């Protein structure tokens, strides 16, 4: 608040002389003349004045009040507006969306007066579809009433490498989980390009540089390898893609049981009803078929591929690239060396050196049954006669 003048209007004042008193809520202070001159009073005693408001004028000669007002008007600086943005023919939201999608907004046609959010989204969809005809691209999540509310990045979007039976198993497993979903499959088999696997589009051949672009564009979050039959293939793809910054996902069937403190690498595929005991450690890029049981404190290396029902007791250690058939039992504490192959139906009670091939010698014979109705009695009778 302006207090009062200590000098009359028209008085000559020297620099630093007290000319007025003002007060704020907490204090009263003197206003000193910033220069010498003849004083013209503008603010009324007791008036509320704003910061920056002119309360009086010092002039080198005595001037009339009208002249002072004219001078004030002439020299008034226009109120500084908030730094004016250049005129734009789009909404701010449209601009931000365009930046997010790396789209030049000046290229986006407007349906109405200004380019809107909907215009940018339509433009992005059109651009994505044209890319798809060129090479096959993962569909962006736009214009979807569900995905607008629950965008894809709330569920990890997976690119499945390999479009065979492994892919079907992975897609089947993903149908039971809510935190991941498959957005595309890639496979070198041209016959399935453009088709779908359980609703997931097969976009083309396995192409790392394409995938790097798609990942950079935010169209998928992680990859997973569905091929279990070739361990060298799994290892090569995993290492090459990882080196280019593509993350790998663990796909774990919802019926699997995972104990406490299990440590996971990435890129593992775990099918139905598998079990991981407490404190087990799983490396990277392993493929475990149904009913495998990796007991507590076991350690699994990388790039292993197991058939159904590989069952271990505790503290078993697997090296890298171990291949197991179906129905294998392994005793506690056994170490299976890297690059070993274990045939189906074995029970293993000793440490296995690296690069071992374990073959089964449990033979069995097959005989054809006689035609006609087969009964238990007839089989037993037949056995007695032989």
């Amino acid at each position, binding site marked *: 608040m302006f207090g009062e003048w200590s000098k009359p209007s028209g008085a000559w004042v020297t620099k630093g002389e007290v000319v007025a008193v003002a007060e*704020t*809520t*907490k204090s009263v202070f003197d206003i000193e003349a910033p220069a010498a001159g003849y004083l013209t009073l503008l603010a009324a005693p007791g008036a509320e004045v704003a*910061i920056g408001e002119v309360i009086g004028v010092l002039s080198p000669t005595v001037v009339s009040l009208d002249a002072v007002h004219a001078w004030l008007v002439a020299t008034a600086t226009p109120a500084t507006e*908030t730094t004016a943005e250049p005129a734009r023919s789009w*909404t*701010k*939201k*449209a601009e*931000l*969306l365009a*930046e*997010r999608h790396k789209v030049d907004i000046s290229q986006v046609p407007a349906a109405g007066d200004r380019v*809107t*959010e909907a215009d940018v989204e339509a433009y992005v969809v059109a651009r994505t579809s044209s890319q798809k005809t060129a090479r096959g691209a993962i569909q962006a999540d736009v214009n979807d009433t569900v995905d*607008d*509310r629950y*965008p894809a*990045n*709330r569920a990890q979007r997976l690119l499945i490498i390999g479009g065979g039976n492994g892919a079907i198993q992975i897609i089947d497993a993903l149908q039971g989980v809510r*935190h991941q979903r498959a957005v595309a499959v890639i496979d070198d088999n041209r016959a399935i390009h453009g088709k779908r696997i359980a609703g997931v589009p097969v976009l083309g051949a396995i192409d790392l540089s394409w995938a790097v672009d798609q990942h950079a564009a935010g169209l998928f979050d992680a990859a997973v390898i569905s091929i279990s039959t070739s361990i060298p293939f799994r290892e090569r793809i995993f290492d090459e893609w990882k080196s280019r910054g593509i993350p790998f996902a663990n796909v774990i069937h919802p019926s699997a049981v995972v104990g406490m403190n299990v440590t996971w690498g990435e890129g593992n595929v775990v099918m139905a009803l598998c079990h991981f005991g407490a404190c087990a450690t799983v490396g990277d890029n392993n493929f475990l078929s149904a009913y495998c049981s990796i007991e507590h404190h076991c350690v699994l290396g990388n790039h292993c591929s197991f058939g159904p029902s590989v069952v271990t007791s505790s503290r078993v250690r697997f090296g890298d690239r171990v291949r197991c058939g179906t129905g294998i039992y392994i005793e506690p504490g056994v170490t299976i060396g890297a690059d070993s192959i274990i045939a189906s139906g074995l029970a293993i009670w000793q440490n296995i050196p690296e690069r071992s091939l374990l073959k089964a010698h449990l033979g069995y014979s097959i005989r054809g049954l006689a035609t006609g109705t087969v009964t238990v009695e007839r089989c037993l009778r037949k056995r007695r006669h032989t």
Partner: protein
Amino acid sequence: MTRATPHLTYVESLRRALAEIMADDPRAVVLGEDILDPYGGAFKVTQGLSTRFPERVFATPIAEASIVGVSVGLALRGFHPIAEIMFGDFIALGADQLINHAAKYPAMYNGAVQVPLVVRTPMGGGRGYGPTHSQSLERLFFGIPHLKLIAASHLHDAGALLKLAAADPEPVLFVENKLLYPLALHLSADGAVRSFATTLDRFGYPVTTATNYPAAQIPDVTVIAYGGMSRLVLPLFDEFAGEEIRVLACFPSCISPLDPAPLAEAAAASGRVIVVEESQTAFGWGAEVAAQLYAALGAQLHAPVQRLGAAPTVIPAAKSLEDQVLVSTAVIRDAVFELLRST
């Protein structure tokens, strides 16, 4: 809660509530510095009170520790004291009485005593009051067990909130905001506010959610803030509506302890959260909100929770410098843009 007349100002709402509390509750007493008429308190919240209730309104010496200490004693002996600390900066002098006495007694004496005490105080800067009259020192009291921090924004019925605090059996630090005092309360969907809702948190205090878009739409961003920050957030409503940016603002009134459920619901609606507090962000309220939201929502959040607040320094008296230190509408606007640009 009763809805206030739309045009009641924040200070008028509090003033009326104080008078009604005094009229309804013969054990209510009000004490503080310079609160007697004709001055009626530095911010005029108590204006008229000493004229109407001369025997229960007390002017005190400039001694905040004793104001709070005497109030604790009054509360222990069956009164319902409402103390005013003229500037929240000086609540530090009453901290020992609040933390080590008021908040602890009921538990220390196994429920044999209660301390139904309200300490009202204005916090916040923006008026060029300088380093020792501009702070938001409620930050010192976050997380003190059995001490409630209630902050009224102008999207709350401030007077009704004060009545809730006065009826609370636990001690309450009631945080007002200097720049809100002259503002009209905004308590319904009108103007740029397209939807307005109030729910109660698990402590029985109101949480206001307001949007700048019709209720059926999905927000782009959720702004969670309290108290005086409503002054900065509300101007964005109108501006953003014209730019297709849908903002949901959520203002809890019980800011410590904190019920995360209503905040998580507001945050999940957009998945992008900005927490605004007037004080510095480090070790602040926004950090607690963010931690609670991560625990409740995890991957439902599209982006890390953004915290906005004052620069980590003293608050200058010069207005131009103060503006650079304190959070502003412009800072919030830029944070919203950045969040929408990247996610």
